[in-house]
């Protein structure tokens, strides 16, 4: 009896019920299961890195909603991202905030791989970097020693961005070209995508792009597929104030604080007929603690600027259409998974053609 995918209504309702049960945790832990459901605030507090990833790729800074989405998606990150995006897109847009001043942010973490010592100093902050990756039987929270506070002799707020320091000797390309007008950036979510993109649009696309995809592309540039000779000029993590200037009021008002991770890659550049040799930059910015994402983004951003610097474009990471068209995991996951939908009409059409071609093939064999 042919049942396959037809007769959907009841099947869908049943499937949804089963799915909900699978996520309820009641199957595996017996009588006390009902009390063991994870609260979204627990997820937020204890899986902050995961929550950051969902916020980044969901393009919405809201740890509460991201945590809720993760729970609803039973831990499926891309599903959670889709939930968040589908909600986000229905929200009204008030405008663009004032550009974040990341130089002023008191960093919880700030490291540079290019200078041993620099104004403001290096600060490790909360990082996995030097932990021993030994699986622990039980997680322990140790006291933070008191004497770590305020040891810096630099006054607070004086941690200039490393790229600004280099900029004083004009060894690194400036923040923006001389003929730069501070236009409102386009909004990828509200305007059609057309290639070639502007760099702000590209950075938007990278910011919501899949971490794994960008990681691999960034990695590929380190292995010779579009080498950009990168140095991690600076990585900083901290909370920054967001300012917004409502047209009705006419002056900037703070609307909240968000935690961000910023990465400035500094890349060798051999120079060209127009430009002397100098360091160029790749930029990465992400919500929350998402260092790997910010670094990957910065590598790919620089690789995508190859045309700007007259470099040969020969590698996938340098190809804007390739990178941007495939970085969005909501699109990618949807289209890959749509292969689960029935295709029997097209398949039938192919079957018919194949049978015809085979019949003709056998006919010609007989004749020959």
């Amino acid at each position: 009896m042919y049942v396959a995918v037809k007769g959907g209504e009841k099947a869908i309702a049943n499937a949804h019920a089963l799915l909900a049960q699978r996520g309820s945790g009641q199957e595996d832990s017996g009588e006390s299961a009902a009390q063991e459901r994870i609260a979204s605030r627990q997820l937020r507090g204890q899986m902050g890195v995961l929550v950051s990833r969902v916020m980044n790729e969901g393009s919405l800074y809201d740890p509460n909603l991201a945590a809720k989405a993760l729970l609803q998606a039973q831990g499926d990150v891309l599903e959670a991202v889709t939930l968040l995006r589908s909600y986000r897109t229905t929200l009204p847009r008030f405008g663009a905030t004032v550009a974040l001043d990341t130089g002023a942010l008191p960093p919880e973490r700030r490291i540079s791989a290019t200078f041993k010592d620099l104004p403001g100093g290096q600060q490790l902050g909360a990082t996995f970097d030097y932990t021993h990756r030994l699986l622990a039987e039980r997680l322990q929270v140790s006291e933070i020693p008191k004497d770590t506070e305020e040891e810096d002799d630099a006054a607070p707020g004086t941690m200039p961005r490393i790229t600004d320091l280099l900029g004083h000797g004009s060894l690194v390309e400036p923040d923006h070209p001389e003929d730069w007008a501070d236009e409102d950036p386009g909004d990828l979510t509200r305007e059609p995508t057309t290639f070639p993109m502007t760099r702000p649009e590209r950075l938007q696309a990278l910011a919501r792009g899949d971490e794994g995809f960008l990681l691999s592309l960034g990695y590929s540039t380190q292995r010779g597929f579009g080498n950009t000779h990168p140095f991690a000029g600076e990585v900083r993590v901290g909370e920054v104030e967001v300012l917004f200037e409502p047209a009705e009021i006419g002056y900037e008002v703070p609307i909240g604080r968000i935690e961000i991770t910023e990465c400035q890659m500094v890349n060798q550049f051999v120079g060209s007929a127009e430009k002397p040799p100098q360091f160029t930059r790749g930029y990465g910015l992400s919500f929350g603690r998402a260092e790997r994402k910010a670094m990957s983004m910065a590598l790919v951003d620089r690789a995508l600027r190859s045309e700007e610097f007259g470099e040969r474009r020969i590698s996938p990471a340098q190809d804007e259409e390739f990178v941007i068209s495939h970085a969005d995991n909501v699109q990618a996951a949807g289209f890959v998974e749509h292969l689960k939908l029935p295709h029997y009409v097209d398949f039938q059409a192919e079957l018919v053609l194949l049978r015809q071609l085979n019949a003709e093939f056998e006919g010609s064999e007989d004749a020959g």
Partner: protein
Amino acid sequence: MLAEPRIVYNEGYLDEQTKRVVRRALLKGIAIPGFQVPFASREVPMPRGWGTGGVQVTASVIGPDDLLKVIDQGADDTTNAVSIRQFFERVAGSESTTRTDEATVIQTRHRIPETPLAEGQILVYQVPIPEPLRFLEPRETETRRLHALEEYGLMYVKLFEDISRYGHIAKTYDYPVMVNGRYVMAPSPVPSFDNPKMHMNPALQLFGAGREKRIYAVPPYTSVESLGFEDFPFEPQQFDQPCQICGSSGVYLDEVVTDDAGGAMYVCSDTDHCTRAASAVGFRASRTRGEWDFPATGTGTEGAVQ
């Protein structure tokens, strides 16, 4: 400390501003038949590639007086068709139907209904890859230029190569069409069997590609010619046997495998057409809600096409 936000969705899901954006793209598409209009496709609460373009188009044209029909592979009861219909019932409070002749808006994936469409009806196609030249040229910058220059040599070369290799044009669905004598257009993955129905159709045909962020249209009574050559004209696929449930001929058939010995039967892919044709002739078979009572089992490939 900010209060936890309430989660609220707009009536009809898309906000009114977005509907206007989509409608503007639709109007432009209608004004330039077959031209792909870029639009800022929004996320909708289903995965990309599952009809998000069609859903945005439908959400932007549907009103309280409309009667919506949703089909996938010609059938009203395939899971994704059911899911999309339920979505609109939930967020737009729209009435729905399975009858092609009653519906004012029909959203479809991979088929055009057998029942001829009439003036005033809107057929919304879900489109996975809107660019007919995509598999010949992967770059969007390049294909847009080719369209602008009306440079379709690539496509004709591909068709010619098929003929020289197989003796036929080996394209059985998503068969490229020339719209209004100007733009080569992807009809979405409908079988080539359905292509002739697009030509001079009295209904408005709208195409939404959500993931690829494109909208295009064929206005009523517009010429839609499937590509071909004078000596190798386009030939839609045909089936040489009737549906084994309702007896209709000249319709697109699904091959239903009935056993593991190569047995198969051929039945209408259009469930609405089949149900009504069957009841019209008092056929003993019924096919509602996926519960089919099969008549005698056919064998092998007897339904194959010439």
